[in-house]
């Protein structure tokens, strides 16, 4: 059946750079292990399965440079293997404990398969999950895009040098990782302001994604609303997020993830289990924390955690099937309505954080796979397209002037600029200003190797201080001390290193330690921060 409209799925995968090689068990590294086991492996497996069946997924995946670096970090890969072994060991015990409880046993078996699958995929690719993603892109199954080097919210980077550095480093990182130049750029938090256009274009990017109201501000100039691509005055392609399809997935209140049959995120065996029994699987401090084994379903809105019923995998998968059908029916209604009103076929752009699928919404990867498969199997009049494909085949997009916007709470920059986190910008700008000033001073000089290393490491630390994650964690009150410490440490390290270079007193031992811990962007050249950059 011919298509009545196109769908573009964009999954943005990002985690802050967390690497503590000196610690065998570092709490915040669990963010990465959980996301690998629950999100990245299941999504990659789904994409591979679809491709093997001859069903082209045709989705776009944004891999942040910090996440990419972690996925290729051998130390983290070793720790990941240990994490999976540890979970599987606990699951073996749990199978014995649950042998007389069929409802629980079924769910423990499900987790056994989840972690065994993760271990098998990690083994298949020697621990490096970039390899299958690269292969999927190479085979034309998906399109991989990038985002700013350390996920800085670019409208909050007032210095042009800082914006250029975030973009140039991201572009180079992508080239190194995926062996080709990137076309697409995921604006961190969809945060847009017009000043970014020229920097993005000069950095070689062809298109971006924005929040709906960035386009809606353009009014009559954007007659297709969010259902058409656009271009900015300098020819940068632009896609706007469709609110309706996002709402059905994102919203805890209205969205599919809140279904009573789905797994309850907040009830975890790390809090339910007998302390001595689970102690070997907690952190070195022995404090209770999530273990990823969640045996209950949502059961009902507002139900007390203690009153949750056991998860039933078959019941949940039946709901996945129903929700995928509902999602597609709604998209077809959207396309029909649009076509009837305007006589052209719409493009529906659905953007999500990848970690929603699997980590928070446990059934999310199955939903994604079911949606893609149903279009083919049921011969639905919809097609998945990647951004580059669409831009290459559509008519010349209209030129618009998008508005300042983000996809964060309230649609602007409130989550990253408020009373809980505004103090951080003093440190961010101290490091950034010093970095730019020092890059300008030394950009044309032949430098001793030690000084060059110190300047390059200062550039890494400066970029890491600019990450959106520290402000966000402070805002939501989660791991606040860690976020504050990371931000301060990166800014202080950058300022210290730059001072040492100027005073010709680089502390090599301290530099070695920083290089080992914050070892992303191996080709980074500090001159990327210079006011008149060679990049």
């Amino acid at each position, binding site marked *: 059946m011919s298509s009545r409209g196109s769908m573009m799925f964009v999954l943005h995968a990002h985690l802050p750079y967390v690497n503590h090689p000196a610690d065998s068990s570092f709490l915040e590294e669990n963010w990465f292990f959980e996301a690998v086991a629950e999100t990245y492996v299941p999504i990659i497996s789904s994409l591979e399965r679809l491709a093997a069946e001859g069903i082209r997924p045709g989705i776009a995946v944004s891999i942040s440079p910090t996440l990419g670096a972690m996925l290729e970090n051998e130390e983290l890969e070793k720790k990941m293997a240990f994490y999976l072994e540890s979970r599987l060991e606990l699951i073996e015990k749990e199978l014995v404990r649950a042998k007389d409880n069929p409802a629980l046993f079924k769910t423990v078996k499900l987790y056994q398969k989840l972690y065994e699958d993760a271990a098998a995929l990690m083994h298949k690719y020697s621990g490096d999950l970039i390899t299958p993603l690269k292969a999927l892109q190479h085979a034309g199954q998906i399109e991989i895009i990038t985002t700013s080097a350390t996920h800085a919210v670019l409208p909050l980077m*007032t210095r042009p040098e800082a914006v250029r550095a975030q973009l140039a480093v991201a572009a180079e990182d992508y080239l190194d990782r995926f062996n080709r130049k990137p076309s697409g750029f995921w604006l961190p938090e969809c945060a847009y302001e017009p000043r970014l256009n020229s920097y993005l274009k000069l950095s070689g990017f062809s298109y971006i994604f924005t929040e709906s109201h960035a386009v809606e501000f353009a009014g009559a100039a954007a007659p297709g609303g969010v259902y058409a691509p656009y271009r900015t005055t300098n020819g940068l392609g632009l896609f706007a997020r469709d609110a309706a399809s996002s709402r059905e997935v994102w919203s805890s209140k209205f969205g599919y993830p809140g279904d009573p049959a789905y797994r309850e995120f907040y009830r975890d065996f790390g809090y339910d289990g007998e302390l001595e029994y689970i102690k070997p699987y907690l952190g070195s401090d022995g404090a209770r924390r999530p273990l990823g084994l969640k045996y209950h379903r949502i059961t009902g809105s507002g139900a007390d955690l203690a009153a949750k019923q056991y998860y039933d995998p078959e019941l949940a998968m039946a709901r996945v099937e129903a929700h995928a059908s509902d999602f597609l029916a709604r998209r077809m209604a959207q396309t029909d309505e649009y076509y009837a009103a305007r006589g052209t076929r719409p493009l529906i752009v659905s953007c999500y954080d990848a970690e929603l699928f699997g980590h928070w919404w446990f059934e999310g990867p199955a939903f994604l796979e079911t949606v893609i498969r149903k279009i083919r199997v049921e011969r639905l009049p919809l097609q998945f397209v990647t951004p580059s494909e669409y831009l290459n085949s559509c008519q010349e997009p209209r030129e618009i002037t998008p508005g300042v916007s983000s996809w964060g709470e*309230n*649609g*602007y*920059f409130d989550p990253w600029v408020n009373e809980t986190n505004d103090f951080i910008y*003093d440190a961010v*700008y101290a490091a950034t200003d010093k970095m730019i000033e020092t890059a300008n001073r030394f950009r044309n000089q032949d430098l001793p190797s030690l000084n060059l290393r110190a300047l390059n490491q200062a550039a890494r630390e400066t970029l890491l201080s600019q990450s959106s994650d520290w402000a966000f964690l402070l805002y*939501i009150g989660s791991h606040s001390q860690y976020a504050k410490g990371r931000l301060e440490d990166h800014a202080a390290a950058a300022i210290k290193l730059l001072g040492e270079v100027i005073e010709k007193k680089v502390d090599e031992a301290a530099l070695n330690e920083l290089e080992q811990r914050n070892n992303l962007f191996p080709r980074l050249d500090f001159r990327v921060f210079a006011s008149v950059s060679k990049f």
Partner: protein
Amino acid sequence: MPQLSQELPAEDRLVLLPKNPGAFFVLWRFCASRVAAFRAAALAGEIELRLFSVDDKAQVSCLKAAWGAGKAYLTVPAQGGMYAVALYALRGGEWEKLLESNAAAAPSAAGMAEERAYASLEFHKRGLV
């Protein structure tokens, strides 16, 4: 109120950041000689943050603050324009401009619908970490 636990170098800085259609955030810091001037009362303790339109340089609002406060939120008088802020201090009875910020765009209000579910993005991340 949370604050930095590490001392930063004393240097002049005035940064204007967009927050939402109704507010800018401004942060400032002074070099050692200016800090000394404030401490010695050569500069009066109360500064003025004068927000002005980048297009015509017309001042659109003014906020008084203690020199050591280091940050403030400014109301945006009109959405969609480009603004900058200048920091003034009184020296010998005369207002003296000490610093001028970057220019920042004031967003226009979108009339947000609840159905856009921005906030759910946030609680997802709350779950992850």
